[in-house]
């Protein structure tokens, strides 16, 4: 693992008596693509603004490359921001927008010219120098905003929901663009989004936030496959979250049926939450020996690449199932889950932790 470029230490911030960030601590490695993911109001944008220098934390420190920058104003920080809705300067041409930071730093005009050309090429907008801002589409404006930031050769680029205003197709295209840019520039990206798919696609490291706390931080695979609590499981993709009892190591009881699993160390007869992804619930014949639970198919929606189906078990729980195979409503089926696809989570213990849980 490479060293830390940015360290957030015990950051606390509140507005009008409302706690936005509560004792947040996080290390960001040099040259990584980190995503802050969470619903609106979770504190992800505030965290970004504190890193960018537009907000001061009430408590805690921000270290950049080992140096305390908590009180350093935004214009003195070695990082740049790509804002939501681009924030281009409307009275300047594209060229002038991109040159803004370089002119402030009194770079020579020939250097600036080369840099503009390089940056426009990097964002696939060669030859756009003289165009006006209003003549650009949303996606192009976003590319200019990125170009304007990266010509300053920041060591850290902050992106605040940069693709939020774009349509789906363009958004997917820009996701690949951003990954490519990140690799070509070799700098650290911190990306803020509420879109879990975006986060999983692009990042090396995902920080899931809710109500001012980091719920879980890890690789996209870790976040998706091993969610640490019900909030993460629910927020990242669809999931079946069911109450269970850990009978002993590697054995969990769900709705009276015993499932083999691969988790251990929870103790015996311990109540837990169990997460099973919809694509991991396998539908088998009712009399198949593998069937652990039995139920009746109730709903079906065709989603394109898969069918989204629901199967109601006798206890009344509706299992969400994704499969390429169609099972008509009314059909009696058996359900089976591979041990490795069962994710066991501790139940929230205190009220405080309960408050972090899933909001319906």
């Amino acid at each position, binding site marked *: 693992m490479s060293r830390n470029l940015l360290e957030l230490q015990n950051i606390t911030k509140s507005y009008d008596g409302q706690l936005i960030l509560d004792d947040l601590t996080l290390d960001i490695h040099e040259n990584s693509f980190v995503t802050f993911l969470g619903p609106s109001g979770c504190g992800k944008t505030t965290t970004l603004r504190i890193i960018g220098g537009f907000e001061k934390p009430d408590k805690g420190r921000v270290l950049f490359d080992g140096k305390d920058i908590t009180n350093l104003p935004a214009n003195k920080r070695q990082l740049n921001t790509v804002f939501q809705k681009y924030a281009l*300067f*409307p009275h300047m041409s594209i060229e002038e927008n991109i040159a803004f930071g370089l002119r402030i730093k009194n770079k020579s005009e020939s250097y600036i010219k080369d840099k503009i050309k390089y940056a426009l090429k990097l964002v696939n907008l060669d030859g756009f120098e003289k165009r006006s801002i209003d003549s650009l589409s949303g996606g192009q404006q976003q590319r200019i905003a990125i170009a*304007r*930031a990266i010509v300053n050769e920041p060591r850290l680029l902050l992106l605040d929901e940069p693709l939020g205003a774009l349509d789906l197709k363009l958004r997917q295209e820009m996701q690949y663009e951003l990954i490519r840019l990140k690799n070509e520039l070799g700098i650290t990206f911190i990306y803020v989004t509420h879109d879990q798919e975006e986060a999983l696609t692009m990042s090396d490291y995902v920080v899931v936030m809710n109500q001012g706390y980091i719920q879980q931080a890890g690789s996209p695979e870790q976040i998706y496959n091993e969610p640490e609590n019900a909030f993460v499981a629910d927020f990242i993709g669809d999931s079946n979250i069911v109450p269970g009892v850990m009978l002993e190591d590697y054995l969990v009881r769900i709705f009276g049926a015993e499932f083999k699993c691969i988790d251990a160390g929870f103790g015996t007869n311990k109540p837990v939450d169990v997460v099973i992804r919809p694509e991991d619930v396998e539908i088998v014949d009712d009399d198949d020996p593998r069937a652990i639970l039995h139920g009746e198919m109730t709903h079906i929606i065709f989603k394109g690449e898969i069918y989204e189906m629901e199967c109601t078990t006798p206890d009344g729980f509706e299992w969400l199932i994704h499969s390429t195979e169609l099972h008509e409503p009314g059909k009696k089926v058996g359900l089976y889950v591979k041990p490795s696809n069962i994710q066991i989570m501790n139940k929230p213990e205190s009220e405080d932790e309960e408050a972090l849980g899933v909001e319906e």
Partner: protein
Amino acid sequence: MKNKSSRYLASPYIIWIVGFIVIPLLTIVYYGFTDKSGAFTFSNIAEILVWENYRPLYRSLILSAVSTLVCFLLAYPLAMILRWYKIGRGSIIVFIFILPMWMNSLLRILAWQTLLERKGVINGILTAMHLPEQHLINTTAAVLIGMVYDFLPFMILPLYNALMKIDDNTINAAYDLGASFWQVLTKIMLPLTVPGIVSGVTMVFVPALTTFAISNMLGGGKIYLIGNVIEQEFMQDSDWNQGSGLSLVLMMFVIVSMLIVNHFDDKKDMGRGGVI
């Protein structure tokens, strides 16, 4: 859309424009270019070259330019503060700054007369503090104070509107790219508020250039402006030809100064900072 009924709908406005703008203007032009017998002449216009007339015009230009500048220097930081603290349009603070606009202008000047008079409020306070009485009223400074006070809200409002239209992130982006406060002000805020500045300058400069009430009440007839000259031609000398001729000259100065000011306004419409 250009059918007959829509044309009829416009008729009240056309009657208004013709009756209250075009006809009076033509009347002024007629009087301005004729003598008492009705014969065509340039002499009314040429009167401006007389020392007694061009001296007040010159004084008016200087005073209105200075008062516009003072208004701008007071209003811009104020509008920036209002923006900085996110003081919205409906707030009491903005209301207080705009409130004088709804009061009769003469009343506002009368209030200053009471303050500045020889036995007025300010001198009363000075006397009470055993300080020497000051000669305040009937000076150029008094007229300037009157102008600035009277027209300041007309500068604040368009500047405030223009500043409020700038997105926070546009300013944050400039800081993010390394700009200092001064660079943000000169490279981002001032250029983006040009439409508001043009509106504000127009709204202050034109009434200040043509005023006669302020100089009458705070200048005591000693600070003689072009407005006073024209007023005198009409009211005291009953010389409509002379008054109209000088009015036309003044109108030319207004038009020329507006052309100069509007030259700075970008062709691109970035949201004009309207008055209300």
